[in-house]
Each structure stands twice: as structure tokens, then as C-alpha cells.
């Protein structure tokens, strides 16, 4: 097992290097100049523009800038934001807990809904409710999250006035659970929607496969109650594939968060990313890319390991 982990980590290094290289060159070649993001080209003096360009180090050729950046990153220095002059890592770490909180809550919501619904659909296959859940799942997968988010704001904030339209909290002075829950419910629902729908389908098919197995028939023939058969024998085995989903949560967490956090003014890493992109804040874009790539690599590794731990049939050597 240890050997496997080490191998995976070693494989990740060239991968991260290539990601950084591609990202660096793409963002630097993309149209747009970071300088015009903090001075108005309609009022700035061109002489001042050159001074600022130099102070940001943007007067050097692109490959030199990449080498300098890489050298610093290897030493753990992600550089400083063009816009704010603050260390990139500090800016990311300040936001990361907010994104993780949102992701965990949305994951819980999606599990709480998808597992029971999936199980029910499998047991009562082809019932009216099963069809309804399937339709719901397809809608949930296809619905664009920005549109869904806006509709929720329109309904719950503007029309009904039940929930805040965005932000993470209204009470800044102390930790207020009710206040936090009121703020998190809409974004967590939007972020969890797509995965909820697909997990529902996955749970349904996993369950269907398991209840056809011989050991289920054995359990039934032993005279066990249907409840015990379903929940003790079938569900535990059907849950195995769901575990791998945890590995996929991380990339979805970062990408999904970009949209959700922007719509709901959630102060997380996704919003930092999109702001940095609009502002051409290269060091921040690079920092978030690298940190989230690392998270994806680690996430899929953790999922593989978890899978081996819970399923004795799988072994890594």
C-alpha cells in the first residue's frame, strides 16, 4: 500500500508541472493586460503605466517569468498578488475553509437525498415515484447551476423574502448557527444539485445490481425480514461505488464553486479565482490552479485508497 501511495505521488509531480506550464502560458498569452485592471486606460498617463509594468516584473520575457515563478513555487512561495500585494498562499488559505464548508454541506445534502431516494427507486422499480425521481434526476443533471441559483434567489429572496440573497453571514460578531444555515442553504443546494441527481441514479443502479446477487437470495431464503435484507445486506454493498464519488467531489467542488460562489457572493476560493481571472492577477490564478490541482490529485488518491479499505476484493500492490 505504501509503495502504491509513493508511486502515485511521484506520478503526480510531472502532471502538476505540465498543468502549471500550460496554465502559465495560456493566461499570459490570453488577451488583456493586468495593468489596465487597476488603472483606467482612459485616464492613466502612459509614462506611469511603464513604471507600474516594471514594478510588477511584467517587462521581462514570458519564459523568464515562468522560470522565476517555478523557482519560487518549489521553495513554497506562490508570489504576491498583482492587485493586492499580499502573498497568494495567504489569500487562498483565507478563502479555502469557506469553500470547504460549502462543499461539505452540499455533499451532506446531496447524500441525504440521493441515498434514500436511490434505494427506494431500486426496490420499487418502475413505480410512479421511481419515474418521478428519474425525471427529477434528469432535470437536476441538465439544469445549469447559474440559472438554478438565480431562480432560487428570485423566489426565496426577492419574492418571498425568506432567505438572504447571498453572503456567508449577517452576524459577524459571533458564530451564529442559524444565521450561517440561512446563508448556506441556497448555495449548498445549487452546488449539490447536479451531484445529488447523478448519485441518485448511481445509487439506484448499484442497488439494483446488488439485490440480484445470490447472497441476497440466500438472505431472503434464510427467512430474514425484508428490512434487514435491504438495509443490512444490500445497502452496505451498494454503497461501495458511492465512496469513489468522494474522489470526484473535489474537482467538482472547485469548478462548481466558481459559479455558485459568484452568484451567492460566497467568499470562497472559486470567487477568488474568477476575480483574479477578470483582473488578470496572474500569480493568484496560478496559485489557485496549482492548489486545486493538488487537491484533485490527492482526492482521487484518497478515493482509491478508501475503496481498497472498504472492499476487500481490491488490493494495490
Amino acid at each position, binding site marked *: 500500500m505504501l509503495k502504491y501511495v509513493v508511486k502515485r505521488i511521484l506520478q503526480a509531480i510531472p502532471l502538476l508541472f505540465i498543468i502549471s506550464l500550460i496554465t502559465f502560458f495560456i493566461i499570459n498569452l490570453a488577451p488583456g*493586460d493586468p495593468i489596465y485592471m487597476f488603472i483606467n486606460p482612459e485616464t492613466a*498617463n502612459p509614462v506611469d503605466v511603464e513604471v507600474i509594468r516594471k514594478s510588477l516584473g511584467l517587462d521581462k520575457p514570458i519564459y523568464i517569468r515562468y522560470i522565476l515563478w517555478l523557482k519560487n513555487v518549489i521553495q513554497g512561495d506562490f508570489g504576491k498578488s498583482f492587485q493586492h*500585494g499580499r502573498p497568494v498562499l495567504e489569500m487562498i488559505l*483565507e478563502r479555502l475553509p469557506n469553500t470547504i464548508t460549502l462543499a461539505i454541506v452540499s455533499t451532506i445534502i446531496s447524500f441525504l437525498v440521493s441515498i434514500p431516494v436511490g434505494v427506494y427507486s431500486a426496490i420499487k422499480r418502475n413505480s410512479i415515484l421511481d419515474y418521478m425521481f428519474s425525471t427529477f434526476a434528469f432535470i437536476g443533471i441538465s439544469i445549469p447551476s447559474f440559472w438554478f441559483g438565480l431562480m432560487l434567489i428570485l423566489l426565496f429572496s426577492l419574492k418571498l423574502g425568506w432567505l438572504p440573497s447571498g453572503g456567508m453571514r449577517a452576524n459577524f460578531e459571533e458564530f451564529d448557527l442559524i444565521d450561517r444555515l440561512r446563508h448556506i442553504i441556497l448555495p449548498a443546494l445549487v452546488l449539490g444539485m447536479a451531484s445529488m441527481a447523478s448519485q441518485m441514479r448511481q445509487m439506484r443502479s448499484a442497488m439494483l445490481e446488488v439485490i440480484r446477487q445470490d447472497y441476497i437470495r440466500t438472505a431472503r431464503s434464510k427467512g430474514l425480514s425484508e428490512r434487514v435484507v435491504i438495509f443490512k445486506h444490500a445497502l452496505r454493498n451498494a454503497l461501495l461505488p458511492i465512496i469513489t464519488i468522494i474522489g470526484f467531489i473535489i474537482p467538482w467542488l472547485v469548478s462548481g464553486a466558481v459559479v455558485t460562489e459568484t452568484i451567492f*457572493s460566497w467568499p470562497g476560493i472559486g470567487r477568488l479565482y474568477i476575480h483574479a481571472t477578470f483582473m488578470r492577477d496572474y500569480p493568484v490564478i496560478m496559485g489557485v490552479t496549482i492548489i486545486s490541482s493538488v487537491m484533485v490529485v490527492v482526492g482521487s488518491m484518497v478515493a482509491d485508497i478508501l475503496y481498497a479499505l472498504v472492499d476487500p476484493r481490491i488490493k494495490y500492490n
Partner: protein
Amino acid sequence: MKKIKQVITLLLFTVIILSSFVGVTKAKSEPMTKANTIYYATFSDPIDLNPAISSDNASSEVTGFLFRALLKRDWSGKLIPDMAEAMPTISNDNKTITFKLRKGIKWHDGTELTSADIKFSYEFILEPKVASVRRSNFINIDTIETPDKYTVVFKLKEPDSALLPNFSYYYIIPKHIWEPELQKLLNGTYKSIKESKYNREPIGNGPYMFVEWKTAERVVLKRNPNFYDPQPKIEYIVFTITPSQAVAMVKTETGEADYVVVPESDVARMRTKSNLNTFVYDRASFDYIVYNLKHPIFSDKRVRQAIAHALNKEAMVKGIYKGVASVAHSSYHPKLWAYNPNVKPLQYNLNRAKQLLDQAGWKVGKDGIREKNGQKLQFVLMTNKGNIMREKLVVYIQNQLRLVGIKVEPRIIEWNTFLNKYYYAGKYDAVLLGFITSIDGDQTVLFHSDPAKGTFNRNFYKNPQVDKLLDDARKTFDINEQKKLYWKLQEIIAEDQPITYIAYRKNGLSFNKRVKNVKVVDLLGTNDGYMSWELQK
């Protein structure tokens, strides 16, 4: 099943632990309540809360409450003293400006503000390594002397009356905080002054003091009990930071925020909201066509005048700006003191346009496009990508000019490419752009032919008479004298038509009705009217 329960419990627990980590602040002595706090929905995180280096709107909006300048403006736009005891005295040769400071002005940390802070603030901004975007405004300052604690003497390289308004734009920063920081920049500890922590924990001397800045969430300011003028009425100001103007408007509509800036396109909609008062005010800002005067078509001023006559600006204001703009015929807004009402605008008149083109030798060809010596009367009109209003305008202009036999090819290009490859390089026929003028008379940057002075004269406009008028106006501090010169300037510019103006821009502001005593004035916006804002009990 038990395991699942355990996992879920564990997850829930983690959430609670994590969320309690996320920035819980200490309870404050005077609690912030809805009744003593005004919430301003902004659509961008500030960058640096340092008036010497920040140039983005979000930062300036915050620093406006925290810092003060030597001069300020009254509601008529006139310059009046702020931290200065009176308007400055100016020597006979116009090269020495002396300010007397008010006594007893304190920084938020209790230190007294003296002439040394003023001197330092200007030296700070003039230091090239600070790379301040405001540096060029003060380049005419030669030396600054402080004969005593309350006297500052600016010695100028040459007389420059445009400095006076600049004294009201630039806020003073505390020497005792920033001098050590500047040292760190000069000795290489900092690569950029942006690295200083005081950009995020500003110490000013304004009517509000900085309390906290939670990135991407909010900035909180609290009333300064030691302010040197009467105190503002509202205890706290909270800037609620949202990711976009659309989100900021939603927050104001729901009542979560009290005021927001509204773009032209949304003014009509916001006016229908029963919980809001929406104000619209004129800005000294216009959209305009810049002709490349080196281009063979545009070197003849009759062609430029013809284009001005051929544009139906009224229709553009109505259709494209949704009525939230006004027709522009001059770079001087009609509400500016320097505006010359006697200059006859080039009104919409297709016949006059055709006549001028005929006189210039451009005859209508078989395809309806005018031509002269085998050359067609056609040009490319460029603008920057991302400004929807301008993208619509270029197409509109294309259709308008077709009516008088001019063929326009619109081209929309991304900012950086547009500026560096075409506009600054002089490689264009004509461009459509926006410009923000100061609310004073000086427009050297737009029209002076010396590249060091006319930094926005990018179309090779050169008229020695104009240069002289601009220089002379800056050499005198006599407003009446300046007015005479600027009136003459406007006559010449209207005749030369090196650029053609389309419309003056306006701004919308929506306030929740619980905010009372709001005053919004053309060209100034809210100015420092927040001092008298009140919240309904």
C-alpha cells in the same frame, strides 16, 4: 448503517468546527445594529486602502470616508478649504503656494497632523518607486517647505493652477506610519509598496475610522469621535462586497443593502421599486469619436464637421443610453463653470453634412459611397471589446454615416490590443472611446500637442493657438482670466472638430427609503453629503 451515521456525524461536526474558525471577531463595545449602520452594496473588493496608490473605484469609495485633503468642494463645485485654514496664498510670480493648516487635526491613532505629514504625503507620491498613478498630477512641484508645524509651502517648477483641484483629489497620509514603510521600499525589503500591511489597515483622519476588512465580504467603518468638523449622523458604514453589479442591485432591492450604483440600463427598472429612491446625476464624462488626423480622409476638417452634422445624437441617447445620458457637443459639460454657451454646436443636419462633403470634393459614386480621385470615403471605426454601449454605438454610427455616403467598417477589439497595437501606435482611422474630464477648466491632456502634456491627444491634433491657450490658463490663478481663455479654446475646438462628441454619461444611485437627507448633485454625485445622511428610526 452505523458507520454511515458515524460518517455523517463526523462530517457535521467538521462543518461546525470549520465554520467557527472562519473569522469570528471579537464583540465590540458599541454594537452594530441595523438602526445605526448604513450598508453600501459594492461590486468589487477594494485593492489597497491607501489613497496614494489606489486607483480603483472600490478603494476610492472607502478611502473617501477615511482620509481628508487640503481642499474640498462645496455643493456648487467650488474649491473650499478642508484641512487648510483658508484658501492658499499664491505668490506674485505664481510659483509659490502657501497653505496654513487648521490646528488640532488628529490622526485616528491620536497623533497630531502637522505640516510634516503634508510634505511627506507629496514626497511619497512623487517617489518614482512608489509607482503612484497620481504622480504626474504633481510633477510641477519642485520643493516643499515647512517653516512651522502648521505652514506648508509648495515651490513650483513653473506656475500651475491645475494643481489647486489636485490638492482636493489627493488625500494626506500619516508620516509616522508611512515613512518607515517607504524606507522598506527604498532599501529593497519591499518590492512594491503594495506589500505594506497598512494598505489593509489604514489610519486616516477622516470622519470615519477603519474597523475591519473581511476579504470579499465586507469593510466596516466607524464614526470618528475626534473628527475636526461636525460629526456624521450615522455610526457605522458597512461596504457589503458582492461579485457583480447585478448582485449588488439585488441586495439593495431585497433591503439587505441600503444603496448601490446603478448603470444606465437599469435605472428605469430600479425606479419602479417602491422601497428605493433612485437618483440620476450628470457626470463630466463623455463618449466620443477620435479621428486620426494623419489619415488622408480626416486631414480635411470639413469631413470631420460633416460627420458631426450627420450623427443623430438625440436618437443615440434615446435608443442606446435609454435616455440616461445627454447629447454632447463639447468636451466641456454645459454645467461646468468653464463651459462656453455661445459656441454654436454642429447640430444634426444631413443636408449640411452632404454640402460639406461636396465642398471637400467627395462626390457620390455609383454604389452610393462618396469618392475622390478614385479613393472611397470609407474608414474603420474601432472600439474596445466588453463595453456593450460602445459596441452598439459603432454599428449605429455605421448606419447613420451611410446616409451621407460614408462607409464605416466597425471593428471591436480587446482593450490591450486596441490600446497598444492600434490606438497608442497611431495605427487607426477613427476610434470610439470614453473620457472622464476633471470638473475644472484644464483639458491639457486632451488637446495639447506636446506629447508630455497632451497624454490623451492621441490623434496628432496640433494647433499652436490651442497650446498657448492651455499653457496660459495654467499659468494664471485668476478664474475670470482662465474662463476667457477656455471660452476661446472651446470656439477653436468646435471649429477644428479634432474629435466628435456623442453623449455625456450619467450615473444612477439607488437608496433605500430609510436613508434620509440624501443629496445628489450633478457632476459631484453625493460629494460629502454622507455627513448629513440619517437613518429612519
